[in-house]
């Protein structure tokens, strides 16, 4: 019992045929088993029709022939809700669809379009005056075998005006069974296709530009984030190209084998790089070890997916990709929330971006499930969401680059600043040491001492000899200690004593140093006390025949207090006094950075001057090691002078 439509003759003018047609169609349709509701009526006024009600027959084994399908009792009507196309999810079954198309318009040529490019194979059967027409299309067939070369599936349908036809479709696919069927005129198709092409152009244009831009940035900055980002968005773009059928049409039209595996493979590829990007961007290695491990695990999963998609059936690999993509979303969301909570500013862009994409995906899924109605925003939510997401990520990359740059500069600045300060202190110290040495050995001290010695030679040779001896002793110690960062206070005191002898002879005065407190274990920078003694003699004790320096040492709480008083007035107004104080400050800062104090002021009631130096105990200082190494030789040097020269 064939249900062929007989060729109807009659007037083409629709006004005549209208009524008779209806009856005839009804009559002929009544011949079919079951009451057929699926009917599309093509009018003049409308050029595009969504087929929302049709008859469905499930063929689980896919064994039915055309005749068998037509004769089957298992047909049942299907009417979709909310204008959504039929969707039977993932199924191994074959589905047959039939619909009646009644042409009440003046045009005979129409197109039947199935806008789900992932379907493996669609067979269209139509009976007309020429007999049975069969067209086949699908993405498991080479592209150029399609009846119409387009990324979606297009079949030419010719129904003379005023007539009706029964269309039978067989859907076979490993993926999702979605049948968005439209019947439209050539003009309508052309118009819609142009719009669609424009939208595609804009979308893929955005991806292309973002990709190229970030790739260029990578080559400029060598930050791998940009490379990962580039690989991710080009991969993602490829996914959408595949989903739209454009990849098959333009990239590999003659490789349907690959076409059928391309989606899970590209998902694996793209999301692998997406994970690499997220991981680097958020610096999960330092953020959280479990998160980082999770990401690494997922990346391994993506690799597995891509590899296995080439061998295992599409049905399983596409399920696996769905699971992995969901896991990916959850992990990335958690990671970006964590990063934001840690105060990493660019992570905010990241969170926002991923949020937008997830919203796009969610909307798309909700539309698929029928929760949300079809609308431009929901139809293209995936594209919109991903375009916004990619732009935000690009912004985030820029922000991250700037943040890292600022941090890096700040760290570098701090490091170089502290290095510079130390170098400056060292330089200042060695310069002042040199100046002090010069100051002592050259002009005033040495020359004046020699001057006095020469004059004394005429008056009192014995004293002259003693003076030379003390001068030599002082110079020996001076030369020994001045290069060392720290010396024992015994050495410093000895230096001071020699100096007092020399100056006493020059001035024909008696200068003494009294010591109280223990010298044991105390270390000081060289010439600290010597400078103060010098100042004291020069400024305070000059014209008196007698001067006393009192040195007091005290150790408390890990600090050493050194008090040096003299009973003359000393001022730092002179150039050399200022130089001396700068020398002391620089040496103290070098040896005990920030942990020393030095005060020099007149004594209140008594006529006199007081200097106080407070330093940490010797073992704490940086330079302790070097000092102790040279101490032995120092002691030897100043121990060997003959005692008779002591005055």
């Amino acid at each position, binding site marked *: 019992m064939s249900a062929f439509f007989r060729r109807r003759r009659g007037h083409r003018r629709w006004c005549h045929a209208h009524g008779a047609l209806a009856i005839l169609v009804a009559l002929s349709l009544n011949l079919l088993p079951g009451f057929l509701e699926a009917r599309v009526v093509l009018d003049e006024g409308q050029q595009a029709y969504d087929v929302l009600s049709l008859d469905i027959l499930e063929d689980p084994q896919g064994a039915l022939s055309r005749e068998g399908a037509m004769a089957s009792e298992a047909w049942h009507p299907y009417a979709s809700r909310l204008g959504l196309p039929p969707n039977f999810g993932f199924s191994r079954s074959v589905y047959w669809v039939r619909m009646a198309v009644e042409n009440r318009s003046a045009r005979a040529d129409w197109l039947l379009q199935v806008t789900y490019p992932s379907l493996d194979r669609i067979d269209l059967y139509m009976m007309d005056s020429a007999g049975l027409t069969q067209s086949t299309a699908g993405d498991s067939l080479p592209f150029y075998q399609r009846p119409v070369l387009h990324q979606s599936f297009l079949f030419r349908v010719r129904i003379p005006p005023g007539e009706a036809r029964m269309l039978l479709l067989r859907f076979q696919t490993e993926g999702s069974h979605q049948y968005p069927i439209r019947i439209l005129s050539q003009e309508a198709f052309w118009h819609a296709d142009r719009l669609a092409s424009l939208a595609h152009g804009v979308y893929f244009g955005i991806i292309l530009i973002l990709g190229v831009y970030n790739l260029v940035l990578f080559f400029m900055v060598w930050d791998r984030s940009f490379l990962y980002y580039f690989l991710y968005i080009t991969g993602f773009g490829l996914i959408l190209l595949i989903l739209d059928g454009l990849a098959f049409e333009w990239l590999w039209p003659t490789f349907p084998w690959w076409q059928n595996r391309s989606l899970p493979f590209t998902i694996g590829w793209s999301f692998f790089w997406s994970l690499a990007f997220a991981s680097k961007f958020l610096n999960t290695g330092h953020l959280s070890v479990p998160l980082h491990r999770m990401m690494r695990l997922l990346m391994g999963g993506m690799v597995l997916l891509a590899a296995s998609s080439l061998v295992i059936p599409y049905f399983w690999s596409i399920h696996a990709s769905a699971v992995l993509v969901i896991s990916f979303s959850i992990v990335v969301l958690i990671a970006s929330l964590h990063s934001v909570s840690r105060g990493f500013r660019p992570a905010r862009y990241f969170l926002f971006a991923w949020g937008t994409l997830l919203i796009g995906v969610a909307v798309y899924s909700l539309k698929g499930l029928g929760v949300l109605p079809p609308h431009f925003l929901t139809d293209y939510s995936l594209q919109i969401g991903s375009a916004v997401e990619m732009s935000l990520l690009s912004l985030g990359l820029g922000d991250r680059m700037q943040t890292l740059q600022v941090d890096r500069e700040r760290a570098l600045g701090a490091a170089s600043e502290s290095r510079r300060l130390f170098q400056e202190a060292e330089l200042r110290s060695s310069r002042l040491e040199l100046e002090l040495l010069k100051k002592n050995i*050259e*002009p*005033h001290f*040495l*020359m*004046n001492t*020699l*001057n*006095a*010695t*020469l*004059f*004394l030679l*005429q*008056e009192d040779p014995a004293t002259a000899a003693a003076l030379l001896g003390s001068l030599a002793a002082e110079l020996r110690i001076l030369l020994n200690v001045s290069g060392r960062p720290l010396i024992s206070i015994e050495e410093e005191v000895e230096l001071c004593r020699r100096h007092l002898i020399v100056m006493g*002879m*020059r*001035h*024909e005065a008696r200068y003494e140093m009294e010591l109280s407190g223990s010298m044991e274990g105390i270390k000081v920078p060289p010439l600290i006390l010597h400078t103060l003694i010098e*100042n004291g003699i*020069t*400024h305070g004790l*000059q*014209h008196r025949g007698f001067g006393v320096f009192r040195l007091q040492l005290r150790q408390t709480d890990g600090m050493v207090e050194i008090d040096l008083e003299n009973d003359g007035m000393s001022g730092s107004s*002179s*150039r*050399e*006094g200022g130089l001396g104080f700068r020398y002391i400050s620089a040496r103290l800062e070098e040896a005990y950075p920030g942990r020393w104090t030095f005060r020099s002021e007149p004594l209140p009631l008594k006529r006199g001057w007081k200097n106080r130096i407070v330093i940490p105990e010797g073992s704490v200082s940086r330079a302790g090691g070097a000092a102790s190494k040279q101490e032995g030789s120092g002691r030897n040097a100043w121990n060997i002078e003959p005692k008779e020269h002591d005055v």
Partner: protein
Amino acid sequence: MRVLIVEDEAVAARGLERMVRDILERRVQSVRIERSLEGARAHLTDQPVDLVLLDLNLNGQDGFSILQEFVAGVFHTIVVSANTGRALEAFEYGVLDFVPKPVMKDRMQRALMRMQNGGERGGLTKFLSVRREEGAVLIPIDKLVFVEGADNDVILHLSDGRTERHRKTLDALEKILPAKFLRIHRSYIVDLEQIDHFRVRAGGRHEAVLRSGDVLPVGRSRYGEIRAMVADARSGAAERPAEI
């Protein structure tokens, strides 16, 4: 000669006195030691002094501010100092000499001889110090056109028309001014570069006419020598017949 030694160290001061007396023998009239600046000033106010031996590093003070003050005086100043780094600078102030410490007798002798002979001329002087109320002021030598001798001091005639009084005598100044300053007359020292031409007046009076228009007399005995020196220095100033 009356000598003042300004030195704060006892041994050095004593030694210097001994050395000066040894060198000058009977030419020295008195030697005074002052151990401080205040003491030196006080002495200079009271007593006439011909020569000052000055240690710049008195009590750690800055020698050069002291020096400025001293070179404005009528006496010659010899700096005795351990810091030879600033010797050149001292010469620019117009000291007679700079003797480094430790002081060696032959070097001091040479310095003291400058006072007598004027031997080598102090080509390094760049300033003359004049005493003003506010203190000593340095006048750059390149502003000096000529020096006129007056009663107790000299008048410095400067290129901008100003004049300043300086305590030293022309004889003393001769010893410290650069070689281009010639003593053309008992009462005049002039910068020879400022001479435009010479002329002879009736009665054998020779004159030097300066670029500025000033006319200065030239000592008869010196005329020839001076003309020769000026002629050496440049193509020669023409001698024009004077108005009669």
